[in-house]
């Protein structure tokens, strides 16, 4: 009989984090569902990840001279953070405000942008847009450094309305033009030198220099503008004030949050509920997510396992399950590479529209990669998380029949609930071993290997590959 309470907590932790071990789920159960939600939406109450040890042994995690280090740093952080929703929301905004290393040639710039998403990602949407508009990587990515008083560049103004806040159909071309004019003068310091450095990446005499936001009043179009039916001498702040209050924005953000946290299939009623939360809370993302996680729209079993895990969710979740990469290790690069091969090169999305998600994560090539990567990580019996699972099995009983072994292993990988068909296939697989016994001593090694092989098959199931 499935444990519904545990199943719901596991669902919450898959969506608001990167999954949880059985022990973590039991701790959450003791705390209660609502308290667990509150802890998730207040990540500032948990200790921050101390990255000194990692930066000491892998110096480029600090300077992020190279793109691999940028990916490695985020992988470490997602794996080791005690604030899973902080990372998850950073990943959400990274997908929505997709900014790619490929154009910037400045890996630390995109890392700094993710820090902005951590600091502000659960705050009011108004603040998020303000920080985004001042973010040097975004200014470089969408050419706002080339948006001048007498020569406006509409790239940022257009995407702010189309991709970042309201969506197409909710503004006119004139609104785009005037939006762009309002953001003239919003640039980065030393922009000419930084542009040359970005285009000729070979020589940074002393490594990269962090970009800094700079507002140049002399380059700002200080004349009257008409925007979304209002007229005034608008600057960028005024534009964001107007955008953040638009009903279209509430619907837009509600839809994006629903898609990311609940289901790949839209639900108009649920999105309407979330949009209303946006309006009631003045666009406070934390309030919206709390309401969402406590709602039946989220709790319903109809939406459990209704999303395909993104490659990042998959590799990070599996590494957390295995207890991998909790200390500095040079092969962390392989983890990011795995996600890259599955179609998600974090910090380097393919376009300003981000990644195509849902079932588009999976094709014949990426599916093989997803299964192989998971099997490789969980197949290492030296990993502390794998050892903990084996230890737990041994502690419960000495011998297991196939059906019992499958049930225990499904629990241990984070309260995974599978269909009857999947369960039957897993039992058939386990039956190849017959009874698995941890006594006598000379049987242990073989039994441990059989457990790991079963875990590898469990991680290949449709249910594990879904969130």
């Amino acid at each position, binding site marked *: 009989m499935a444990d519904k309470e545990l199943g719901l907590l596991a669902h919450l932790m898959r969506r608001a984090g990167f999954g949880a071990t059985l022990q973590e789920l039991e701790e959450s159960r003791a705390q209660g569902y609502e308290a667990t939600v509150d802890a998730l939406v207040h990540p500032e109450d948990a200790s921050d990840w101390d990255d000194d040890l990692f930066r*000491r042994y892998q110096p480029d995690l600090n*300077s992020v001279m190279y793109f691999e280090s940028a990916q490695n740093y985020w992988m470490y952080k997602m794996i080791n953070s005690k604030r899973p929703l902080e990372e998850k929301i950073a990943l959400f905004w990274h997908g929505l405000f997709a900014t790619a290393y490929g154009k910037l040639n400045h890996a630390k710039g995109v890392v700094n942008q993710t820090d902005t998403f951590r600091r502000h990602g659960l705050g009011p949407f108004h603040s998020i847009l303000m920080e985004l508009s001042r973010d040097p990587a975004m200014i470089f990515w969408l050419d706002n450094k080339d948006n001048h008083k007498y020569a406006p560049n509409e790239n940022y103004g257009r995407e702010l309305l189309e991709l970042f806040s309201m969506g197409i159909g909710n503004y006119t071309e004139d609104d785009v033009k005037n939006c762009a004019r309002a953001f003239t003068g919003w640039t980065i310091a030393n922009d000419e030198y930084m542009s040359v450095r970005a285009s000729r990446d070979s020589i940074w005499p002393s490594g990269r*220099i*962090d970009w800094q936001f700079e507002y140049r009043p002399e380059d700002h179009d200080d004349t009257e503008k008409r925007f979304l039916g209002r007229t005034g001498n608008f600057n960028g702040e005024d534009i964001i004030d107007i955008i953040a209050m638009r009903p279209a924005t509430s619907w837009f953000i509600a839809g994006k949050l629903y898609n990311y946290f609940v289901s790949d299939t839209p639900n108009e009623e649920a999105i309407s509920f979330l949009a209303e939360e946006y309006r009631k809370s003045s666009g406070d993302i934390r309030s919206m997510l709390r309401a969402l996680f406590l709602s039946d729209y989220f709790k319903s079993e109809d939406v459990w396992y209704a999303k395909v895990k993104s490659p990042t969710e998959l590799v990070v979740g599996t590494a957390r399950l295995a207890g991998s990469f909790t200390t500095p290790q040079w092969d962390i690069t392989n983890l990011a590479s795995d996600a890259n091969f599955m179609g998600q090169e974090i910090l380097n999305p393919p376009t300003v529209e981000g990644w195509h998600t849902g079932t588009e994560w999976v094709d014949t090539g990426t599916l093989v990669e997803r299964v192989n990567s998971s099997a490789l990580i969980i197949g290492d019996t030296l990993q502390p998380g794998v050892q903990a699972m084996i230890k737990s099995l041994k502690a419960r009983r000495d011998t297991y029949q196939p059906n019992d072994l499958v049930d225990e292993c499904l629990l241990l990988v984070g309260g995974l609930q599978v269909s009857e068909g999947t369960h039957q296939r897993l039992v058939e697989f386990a039956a190849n071993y017959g009874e698995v016994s941890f006594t006598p001593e000379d049987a242990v090694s073989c039994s441990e290997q059989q457990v790991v092989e079963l875990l590898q098959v469990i991680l290949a199931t449709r249910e594990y590959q879904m969130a």
Partner: protein
Amino acid sequence: MTTTKTFTYSHTIGFLTAVGRGFTNPVDLAFNSQGVIYVLNRAGPETTVRLPSKRVSMCTIDEEFLGEWGTGGQGDGEFWWPSSIAIDSLDQVYVADEGLQRVSIFDKGGKFLSQWGVKGSADGQLEYPSSIAFDADDNLWLTDSGNHRVQKFTKDGQLISAWGQRGSGPGQFQGPWGLALTEAGDVYVSDWGNDRIQRYSADGVLIEEFDGLPEGDAIHRPAGLAVDDDGNMYVADWGNEKVKVLGPNGSLLATLRGESVDSKWAADYFAVNPEEGQLRSEADLFPELDPPVRREREISAGVEGYFWGPSAVKLDRQGRLYVADSLRHRLQVYQVN
């Protein structure tokens, strides 16, 4: 005793290059008897294209490049996470490696001679050896950071003594990093995770520890260190992106933040790329950044002249102070007056 020493920035050696005349994450340096400076380049991450950047560069105080040797890899004489470099009385060069848990030995031109070291926690075994130094008897001392102890070896790797364990009490360590030996035989250790410097006698008896600076001046995550003849301590205050000079009693005598300008090697590059040189000369490379909302490391990331990841501090025979400014790919040299 109170020092009357002052510190004047002299010049910078090095700039970033993947190979050739320049450095990549220089984490340590050493001088041989002829005054040649050996600079150890850690580089990373460990992808195939970056491995050749793991190397030893040779140069002089006057920025003459004398060549380089070594490469990344896990074979004999190769480097993975090279951490420290020291030179014995015969001018042979020793390189510790935190990734391979070993010490490799080269002649003065970089020809590989031998290596020793076994991964593990038993006496004489290694777990992330962070810093090495020779005493007057040509014995090699080593901070065994993963085992939270100090070990003393003959230079061919025979264990002589070991002390220390994990903890924050007297005689304990938390990931010790820097190591400095004095003529009198004292051993100074940067106790990285405990934010303090410890001073021991040569036989491992704790003499004193230094962690009493007031908040604001306190050392955070100390890396390499050096000690002069007067007992003054020069500490790479890695966690604060500074170098601190402490008197023999641990009082703060000076704080250096770094003030680098282009080295000759960098200037040569811009001389032949005048368009970039012009734009660089017009850029503000010492911007005022707002400390209350930024950590020191974020300020260092935005101000090119400051130290960023200072890993090692060394004094040459003339008493000049060298700082391995690892994330800025250079050495900053100070005249000590």
